[in-house]
């Protein structure tokens, strides 16, 4: 697919179609989880609409909501720790 967007999730290269959200990309790249809660459990996107705050990831060094952020070329997404 020539129009595919390339980004990195935890250092791994992923290709997605334009318009894919980072939350969707997390599922395409692995188990879909976004972060580790203060108690140590992994958490994943829940509401998909910017309310629950469960989908927080670090994108290019800034904390962002994965469900509210479209993938763009060259993005570095970190879901760890």
């Amino acid at each position, binding site marked *: 697919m020539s129009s595919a967007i390339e980004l990195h999730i935890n250092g791994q290269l992923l290709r997605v179609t334009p318009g894919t959200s980072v939350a969707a990309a997390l599922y395409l790249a692995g188990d879909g989880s976004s972060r580790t809660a*203060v108690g140590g459990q992994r958490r994943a996107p829940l509401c998909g609409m910017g309310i629950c*705050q469960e989908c*927080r990831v670090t994108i290019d060094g*800034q*904390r*962002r*909501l994965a469900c509210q952020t479209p993938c763009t070329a060259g993005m570095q997404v970190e879901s760890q720790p």
Partner: protein
Amino acid sequence: MNADVIIVGAGIIGAACAHGFAERGLDVLLLDDQRGGATAAGMGHLVVMDDNPAELALSHYSLSLWRQWAPLLDEGCAYRNCGTLWLAANEDELAVAEQKSTLLDAEGLGCRMLSASAVHEAEPMLRPGLVGGLHVSGDGIVYAPNVARWLLAQQPQRIRQQHAQVSEVSGNRVRLCSGEWLSAEVVVLATGSARELCPELPIRPKKGHLLITDRYPTRLRHQLVELGYVSSAHSSAGTSVAFNAQPRPTGQILIGSSRQFDSLTPEVEHDVLARMLQRAIDYLPSLAQMNAIRSWTGFRAATPDSLPLLGPHPSQPGLWLALGHEGLGVTTAPATAQLVVNQVCKQPCAIDVTPYLPQRFASAEQPA
């Protein structure tokens, strides 16, 4: 009689009183309808305040009791002796810091003035240009809802908890919404405000907004408070905001605070929140790059002189009050419990209770 003591309200004040009575060997029945109060909404800063001598006496005494609890509290209570850094943005505020320093020093409280560069060294996240500050070393923070739970768990054989809404109090008797009347030697009202159960008492709700960030690698070490807060905290009309930031042990930053008398709805008001955040960003510019995950509001129970009501109801024998702790009830909970329990048990109090007696408002009371 359903118990030696019935306490209405299981916030930090009701819980501390229950703990205090149970320690004296009395059986306590604690009633709460779990509507949620200030304890779950507030900031949990343990801070010596000195706006008047009675406030200083109460908060100082209470901080000494907090330090006795500190080694016993569990991890969930999140006690930290982080100290308070009062920030002076101009020469006037620096003069306030110096007065404060003299007052606290005279009380034997550990504090020291910091130069502009020392403030910056202590908290590099702060904007440049502040003129100085005052570090108060004995202050701290807790997570108040868990302290309330911890207090009740210390005396399980003496404290019975019941989920019930109280619809009426009359001396040493309370009526539940089911219609049932309960009675005890002593009833203590610890419902924060008293709008429903004792509307004659002069307590008004003062709304406050708070906001918390995501977790970040620890950047702040002290609770930070602007000295402009001194004028904002006790103004009796309108809406004011003042910078107040707390480093949570999780790496989050808890940001306060607003004060408004004219709003009774719990909704977050975006104009007030925006003003509060703008103030916070003025002091901590890098906050603007951080992610906020929640904002909410709570109501402080404010009395005309900003001091709580601790003691017998002016006209209802058997009914005792532990109400109206405004923005300082987490700090003053241990002292409140001691002053109420000692009065009920007719034992001497560690500090003079006169300034907190509900009787001081008796003349203002409107007969029903």
